Each structure stands twice: as structure tokens, then as C-alpha cells.
């Protein structure tokens, strides 16, 4: 009985244990420079090379692979220059991420390297610009009394910098690079006020397009010039 139990345990262990093997006898080099939106070098940005990493979905681009592996990692120096020695894995979901902390947007380089490996084994990302994250707290409230409605939309720059490459060439149709996003709401007697937060980039412009009681639309713009921005509107 004990022996059978031991055999079953061993079989279960061997069944569930798995080993992932990366490519033998190869290293790649990822290099480049990371700067902020004003061209100032960012020191200490973490650069990671990953395999088996998903690309997320249209509405939520970004890494999504639950079985991702980090193949190499390093940090940018005081000049913003980075150089990462990395293992290599032939995989459709090869990715390089630059993460300079919560204050900056993140950069993700995706490519399929099953059929393509740079002949010099170097992924040169050149200069990558990470924009400073801006948090916009906005508060819209009704002071005009019941029966008044507000329909509005906010157009702002998102913080995703997801670049997809095929054979070393950027595929714009599959990349998301600080693209504009829209957020629309109607405020009425059911929901007359709205208080929320949106994340965008410092230096970008937000368009606030609104219409009160179905009157012609009015467009207001404001530039996010600080990491934390407060916006209040009453109707």
C-alpha cells in the first residue's frame, strides 16, 4: 500500500513538474537610450527582456502572458544609456519592456522571433522617449437644478507605448503609441455629478467637449502641465 502511494506521488510530481528550455549557446544584446518628454536622460530605468509574453487586448494593450520569463535585465545609466545581455528564446511573444517607475509611461517592444533574429544579435532600440505621467482629477457638478443635462466627452492622450515590430520594421497598425482616447458621459437627473480620474501624459492637451441641454457643442482645451492636475466644471 505504501509503495503504491509513493509511486502515485512520484508520478504526479513528474507529471506536474515542467521545464522550459531556452536556446542553447546564444546571447543577444539589447541597447538604446531612454529620455523623458523633454529629452532629458532617465537614469535607473529598468529594461527587461521577456519571452512567452502576451500582448494584451485592444482595450487593454500590454503584457498578459501568465507564463512569461525574464531573459535579461539591466538599468539605464546616468546618461540614459542601457545595455542588456540576455538569453534567447525562439518565441512568437518576445518582448522588451522599459519601466522607469510609476512617474513615467512604460515602453513595450514586441516581435515574433520564431522566423526573425537580427543577424548581429543586437536589438538596438535607439532613443526611447518615456513621457511623464499626469494624473487628472476632475469634478463635474450640477448647480443649475433638476432637469438640466450635460453631455460631454474628454479626449486625451493615453500612456501606452506598445510598439510591434515584424522583421525589425515597426508595424504601425498593430502598435499603440500615445494614441488619443475618448471618454463620454451624459449627466442628468439620474446622475447629475461625476468625479473621476484619468491618466494621461504631462505636456499633452485635453479636449473637453460638452453640450448643455442639447445646445451646440463647446470645446475647451487645457494643457496638463503638472503631474497632478485638478479640473472642476459646473453646469
Amino acid at each position, binding site marked *: 500500500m505504501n509503495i503504491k502511494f509513493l509511486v502515485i506521488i512520484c508520478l504526479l510530481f513528474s507529471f506536474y513538474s515542467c521545464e522550459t528550455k531556452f536556446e542553447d549557446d*546564444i546571447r543577444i544584446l539589447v541597447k538604446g537610450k531612454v529620455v523623458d518628454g523633454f529629452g532629458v536622460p532617465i537614469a535607473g530605468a529598468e529594461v527587461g527582456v521577456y519571452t512567452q509574453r502576451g500582448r494584451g487586448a485592444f482595450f487593454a494593450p500590454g503584457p498578459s502572458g501568465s507564463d512569461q520569463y525574464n531573459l535579461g*535585465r539591466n538599468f539605464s545609466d546616468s546618461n540614459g544609456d542601457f545595455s542588456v545581455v540576455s*538569453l534567447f528564446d525562439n518565441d512568437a511573444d518576445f518582448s522588451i519592456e522599459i519601466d522607469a517607475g510609476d512617474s513615467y509611461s512604460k515602453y513595450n517592444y514586441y516581435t515574433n522571433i520564431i522566423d526573425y533574429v537580427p543577424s*548581429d*544579435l543586437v536589438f538596438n532600440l535607439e532613443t526611447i522617449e518615456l513621457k511623464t505621467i499626469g494624473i487628472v482629477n476632475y469634478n463635474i457638478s450640477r448647480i443649475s437644478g433638476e432637469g438640466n443635462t450635460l453631455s460631454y466627452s474628454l479626449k486625451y492622450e493615453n500612456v501606452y507605448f506598445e510598439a510591434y515590430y515584424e522583421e525589425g520594421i515597426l508595424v504601425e497598425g498593430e502598435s499603440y503609441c500615445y494614441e488619443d482616447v475618448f471618454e463620454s458621459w451624459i449627466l442628468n437627473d439620474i446622475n447629475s455629478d461625476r468625479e473621476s480620474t484619468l491618466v494621461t501624459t504631462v505636456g499633452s492637451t485635453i479636449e473637453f467637449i460638452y453640450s448643455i441641454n442639447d445646445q451646440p457643442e463647446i470645446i475647451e482645451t487645457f494643457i496638463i502641465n503638472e503631474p497632478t492636475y485638478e479640473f472642476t466644471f459646473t453646469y
Partner: protein
Amino acid sequence: MSLHLLIKKIIALLCLMLSLFASAQDEDKLDSKNEAAAESSIFSSRERQTFVVLSNGFNLPITAGNNFIGQGLEGNSGLDFGFQLYLYKQFFIGFSLNYNFFDVKDQSVVGNYKKTKVNEELLNIGYEFLPTDKLRLGVVASVTGSARFKNKQSSGSNQAYQIDHSRLSNYGIYIRYELNSVVMVYLDYAYSIAKTDIMVPNELEDVFRKGAYNNVGIGLAFNIGKRDLISRFLN
């Protein structure tokens, strides 16, 4: 013919020779009485002549140099298994199978993994001096050798790993103290040079093309037989 295959054939040949000459042990005992009166020198001693030495020991690998081993790895521990066949007097050929364990001290140099296990297979030649009644001083150099670096990223049941291969050269010395006619304790030192087959970008060529480490070890060795190989044919 691959190096592994060559070494396996040599081991098989040595085992065959061992079995052929095992029957000569009785004869050895008779001969040893006559040899007691024979002359001894630092270069040879009929009384202390041996046929085969088996050894097993622990060692500490110590990394060195401006290369991926010296900069990226740190020695942890090791195990040695050795076999020496004395061809003529104190001149021997040998085979050694070593396992060296390293911790990764700088992932930015080697890539993202934590531990390295190096399996070494070496075919050696060497000469053993007999400076005193109880001591044996040997010098060893490898004729051919190979090393397999298994680089592990994680531990436990969910492992990821990668393999690097290299040719290996090894130069060493040892000193053995005879506890009796069969058992000896030894201290040894070896310098190993690994010439890798790793594909790397030009920028990394100098770091990855060659690596070196030292080994300091201690262990037990066992004498088998009392005549060298050629003497068995001549007499």
C-alpha cells in the same frame, strides 16, 4: 566523432583493461616482496608503484578574470571523480568527471539566471613524483575536455534553463598522502579554461569567448594494483 563519444570509448577501453589485469593481483602480491628491496627515487619506486588510482573529492571553484565567468559567476562548491591509469612507472593517463556549482553574482553580465552547474569531462595526462615515503606530488594537464554549463533560472518544479557548451583545458597539481598502501588523502589545485561556442554580438565577444576558474579540492584516493601497464606486458 564527438568529444563525449570519444571519452566514453576511452572509459570503456580503460574498464576492459582493468578487468583484464584484475587477475594479476595475486602476482602483484608475490612481486611486492621482491620489490621491497628495490631502489626508490623521486621519479619511481617499484615498491610504491600502482596501476590504477580512483579518487573522489570536494572542491571550491574560484572564478577569475575579465570574462563571463569571472565577472558574472561566483564559485559555490564542486565534486570530483577521477581515474588514473599508470602507463609506465609514474606516467599516467586519466579521466575526470567534475561537477562545479556556481551562483550568478551579476546577471547583467551573463543574462537572467541564478545558478550554473558545470559538468566537466576531461582526458588527462600526468606525471607523479615521489618526494618522500608517504607523499605523491602530481602534475596533470588535459589532452581534451568539454564542459556543459546548465544555467538555471528558477528552482522547484517549474524550472527554466539554458545550456552553454565549451571546450575545456585543465592544468593542475596535487599532493597525496598515503595513509596506507591503498588509501590516500589529497589536496589539489587546477586552473580551467573554457573556450565557449556561444554565439554573441561583436560587443560581447571578448567577455564570452573564453572564461577561466580555479579549483581547490580535497578528497580521498585509492590505489589498485602494484604494477604499471607496460610492465605487465614486459615482465
